[in-house]
């Protein structure tokens, strides 16, 4: 849960990038770290394996400056995507305020996307949160591979698979080139701050 200090007019919230292994969660954070230098408030910390897979999490603190009279700080996290790190994902999800679900556009990863979304649903439930209520945005990553003629799912197919029931905002993206990365994060932050305003009435008119 976000730290909201109404006396000092400060809000610190937590956004988690979720999704199957190798879908590009860390690449999203890398891109933000490299590109949004003005907003980045500290070093990006990654705890990964030799094979470059996230083992615990990645962490990047950013600041949005003053919004409606409040200083907004955001902690960005990724979870390890591999199936066996379920308990770590549960830990990282603790206190989450908004989620970006990064789905892999490769056809061969269709089931992994669905399994990961199911895992998110269950882990949120365990944390007392509802996937239908928490600020959530979908990102359909690896769209740059469309140029390579590799078997990709269409965005429409991914919408049907993952977003038919949730009906949350979604963005085609390429974390490698940066396409859609900023838009996904901006939309998530908007949804999260709106949600937090409902809870805490922090915004000044």
């Amino acid at each position, binding site marked *: 849960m976000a730290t909201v200090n109404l006396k000092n007019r400060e809000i610190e919230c937590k956004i988690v990038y979720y999704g199957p292994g190798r879908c590009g969660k860390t690449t999203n954070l890398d891109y933000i770290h490299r590109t949004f230098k003005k907003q980045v408030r500290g070093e990006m910390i990654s705890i990964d394996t030799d094979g470059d897979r996230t083992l615990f999490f990645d962490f990047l603190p950013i600041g949005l400056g003053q919004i409606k009279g409040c200083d907004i700080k955001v902690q960005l996290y990724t979870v390890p995507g591999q199936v066996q790190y379920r308990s770590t994902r549960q830990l990282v999800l603790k206190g989450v305020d908004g989620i970006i679900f990064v789905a892999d556009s490769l056809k061969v990863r269709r089931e992994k996307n669905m*399994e990961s979304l*199911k895992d998110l649903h269950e882990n949120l439930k365990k944390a007392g949160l509802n996937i239908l209520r928490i600020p959530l945005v979908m990102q359909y990553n690896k769209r740059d591979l469309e140029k390579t003629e*590799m078997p990709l799912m269409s965005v429409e197919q991914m919408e049907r698979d993952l977003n038919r029931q949730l009906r949350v905002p979604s963005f085609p993206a390429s974390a490698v080139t940066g396409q859609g990365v900023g838009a996904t994060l901006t939309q998530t932050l908007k949804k999260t701050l709106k949600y937090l305003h409902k809870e805490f009435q922090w915004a000044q008119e």
Partner: protein
Amino acid sequence: MNLAEKIKWKIEEAELYRNQGLINEALDIYRAVDAMIRKNSRIKNRETLLAKISARIDLLNRNWENLKAPSQAPEISDQARDLIREMFSFDDPHVKGSSSLGGAVSLAEFGQYDQARKELESLFDYDHLRMEAARNILQYGIRHLSSKELTLVYQQWQSDERFSADEIKRLGEILEQVLENAGRKANAGAPAAPEPASDGSEDRDEEVDDEDILDISTIGLPLPTGSRAGEKVELDINFQNGRQINLVLSKGQKEIVNSLETGGRIAGVIFYSPVAIFSGTVYVAAKKEIGSGPKQGDYTVDLKILHIESG
């Protein structure tokens, strides 16, 4: 596309998956290419190609085995350790020293047991934190120490004057419980058991209420009869009302329709919903050819979900 082009294309696809770190997917393609080449004796440089693909498969297999192997908690930087202490510590702000306890527990949660134990032991001087610190040393210790080592930890506390007789007695009970929960016996020198599976799921069937069924978009249906018996086909759902689902199959899918017998049960059906994949059994309630309208000549099939399997 001729065979040589097809092989080249498949290898490019496999290499893309390998570059993406999708080892299993790359392996599947390489195995398919291997089978494709073996079937065709007239391919130029056949043996050289097979040797190259075999070497690639071996390499990917080794990578896959490494990936599956349980990873030890890594040595992490001081910066990462501080972050874990600070960000994952859900302590009680009203209890003095609670943040130190919470921080140490967070380290233990992330597998940094040795450091966590040091920090927990440093809290033994505080009366209100001592028992909680000791309990956490035992509870997280079971993942990293043998029964004998864990018992030794407890035995050292028995001679530590900071613990009262009551506290030692209570910690003895906690140790017994921790060992029992891990399927071990107190004082046994058995090697450390692996961490129990975290998801706690067990295979069991579930009765189905309409409310339990999620919005299903597609089903994977194993064909029960006919020349394609056993083959799994993916079919989009036309309409769903709770556990009643309706499919519309085109004229070209007549073979699938013929494979389904009204009144028959089909097990092992996969249901794809936007938030879950689950399997179960369906009952073929009805099937008929559409007699009029734009879909005239197509087929409609009604299925009823009888039960779902969890786990």
